[in-house]
């Protein structure tokens, strides 16, 4: 197991290298000059050139990239081009809120999608199945910023049940923190739970017809045991793959939700850094997002092995 984890982490290195290059090149190719923006509207050409030189942006792309990469390897993310503060500190403050949101969104999506998908899958074409499918289609179709604003309008403004925006840290009380987290997490879950729900439902309906399920019925096992050990358990394997795709959605979705709910996370940081052309912050945020994605996929692969003995035992055969 440890060998497997190490192997996967080594495999992540080229992925991170390539994405770092893509992120770097993407930034340089996008319009807007950070030096000109930082120097201000009335700045002379000399001032702009001076700022550019101070930021190191007058060097060749290759030099800039290698310098950035070299610093990264020593754990140095550089300094913000705008505030001059260390990027590690800026990003550090934003990671916890984003992790809260993404974890909450993932757990809520898996729970909601898992429960509804199981119920719908075990009772195909029932009223419940059809209702769940219809609601899932709505959730999938509704844009996340719209769902978010609708929730704010209803529960934040009209009913005043929940704070309409902003984050309360857990250190200031569990209740208030959960209340501030509720709507952003719900927005993520409404968009992402249908993916899990549909995958699991279809997977269960297919598994119900498997020969080994009929053989389990022939053993006279109770319906609950057949559903639990022979249908749902086997249906989880393909669903784990869907959960991996979901993680990608959540990383992108969290950024959008952070804007709608003024959530002080990596997503809103990225958007403001984009506005300022703050290359060092943007690069750091994107690279951390990629790393998070790679790490999450490693977890998915480990989970896959846990559920599927054939993969777990692959090294013995």
């Amino acid at each position: 197991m440890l060998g497997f984890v190490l192997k996967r982490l080594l495999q992540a290195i080229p992925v991170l290298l390539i994405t770092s290059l893509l992120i770097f090149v993407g930034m340089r190719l996008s319009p807007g000059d950070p030096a000109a923006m930082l120097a201000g509207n009335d700045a002379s050409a000399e001032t702009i050139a001076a700022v550019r030189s101070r930021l190191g942006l007058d060097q060749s792309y290759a030099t800039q990239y290698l310098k950035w990469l070299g610093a990264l390897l020593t754990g140095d993310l550089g300094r913000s081009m705008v505030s001059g503060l260390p990027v590690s500190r800026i990003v550090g403050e934003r990671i916890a809120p984003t992790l809260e949101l993404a974890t909450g969104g993932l757990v809520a999506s898996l729970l909601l999608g898992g429960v509804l998908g199981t119920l719908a899958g075990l009772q195909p074409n029932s009223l419940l199945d059809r209702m769940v499918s219809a609601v899932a289609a709505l959730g999938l179709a509704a844009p996340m910023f719209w769902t978010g604003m609708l929730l704010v309008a209803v529960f934040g403004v009209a009913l005043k049940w929940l704070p309409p925006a902003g984050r309360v840290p857990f250190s200031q009380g569990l209740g208030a923190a959960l209340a501030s987290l509720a709507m952003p997490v719900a927005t993520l879950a409404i968009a992402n739970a249908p993916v899990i729900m549909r995958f699991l439902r279809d997977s269960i309906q297919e598994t119900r017809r498997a020969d080994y399920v009929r053989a389990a019925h022939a053993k006279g096992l109770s319906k609950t045991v057949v559903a639990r050990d022979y249908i749902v358990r086997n249906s989880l394997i393909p669903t784990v793959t869907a959960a991996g795709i979901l993680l990608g959605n959540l990383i992108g979705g969290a950024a959008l939700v952070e804007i709608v709910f003024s959530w002080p996370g990596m997503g809103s940081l990225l958007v403001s850094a984009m506005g300022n052309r703050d290359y060092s912050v943007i690069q750091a945020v994107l690279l951390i997002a990629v790393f998070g994605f790679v790490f999450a996929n490693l977890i998915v692969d480990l989970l896959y092995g846990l559920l599927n003995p054939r993969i777990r035992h692959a090294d013995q055969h």
Partner: protein
Amino acid sequence: MTTMIAAETRATAGASFEVDGLTVRFSGKTAVDNVSFRVAPGEALGIVGESGSGKSTTAMGAVGLLDPEIAAVEARHVRLDMTDLRGPGAPRAGILGRRIGVVFQNPMVALNPVLTIERQLTDHMRQHLHLDARAARARAIRLLGEVGITDAARRLSFYPFQFSGGMLQRITIAMALACDPELLIADEPTTALDATVQAEVVDLILSIRRSRGLSLIWITHDLALLNRVADRVAVMYAGRLVEIGPADVLLDHPAHPYAAGLLASVQSLWTGEGAEFLTIEGAPPPNGPEMPGCAFAPRCPRVFDRCATRPPMASTPADAAHGVACWLFDPKVQA
């Protein structure tokens, strides 16, 4: 546990199994039409027919293993000894897997790929016989020994993909026997196996049947096999039972023209070189079970006007234990 002691000490005599008027419809279309038969205690009944004749559907429908979402099953009754399996409030739970064991055609897909052999050998044992984990495990090891799997204690922790097809079929046989059933239903248990393994599995089931005194229903399309495994033979055609009788009589002197044609074609295969391979012209009608008359009439060499109405199952004049559904054997026609 008293149940366990009863199961252990019972001389494992087989139970009688009686199916009366079984009809199965798939979304309104009849697949099995009014089939009745009886298996005496300790007797082996072979059900033979070609693909689509309804032989598997008959057995699976009788014991309640067809998906109720797609299959509508009716019967006057299905009885294991005195217990009615189909009546209202029938005690189905505790019958399947406990008093009736089923072995399926393809062992490669009949086992759950993500559960260990131990789990799959013991989960129904623990449910039906209320054994604890240790007792169930000991019983599983003994069962694997009985079906000829060596090193059973170690192999209990294996998953299905770690076994060959022949070994897996031995394991599913052990599963079917786990709660000491009185009736074993073997649904083409050798069809999916390599030819070399087939004979071993046939021998295994026959020896277990002898040692345990089980009643047996063996479903097959292989007439040659029936000679070895069956005391009595039931022939199905297009969803209907057309002939049933003692194996030695029926396989020597089949009464129904379909059974006779089937046997002649197999025998022409056996005689081998030079001999012409005999076939029955045509193919079974797709709506056979719904035809008002005899379903074999369109292909029958001896068809006559009476065949437009459906022949009842009746004893042949020579042998009361030998039934045939054909107007040729009606006393009025013969007279």
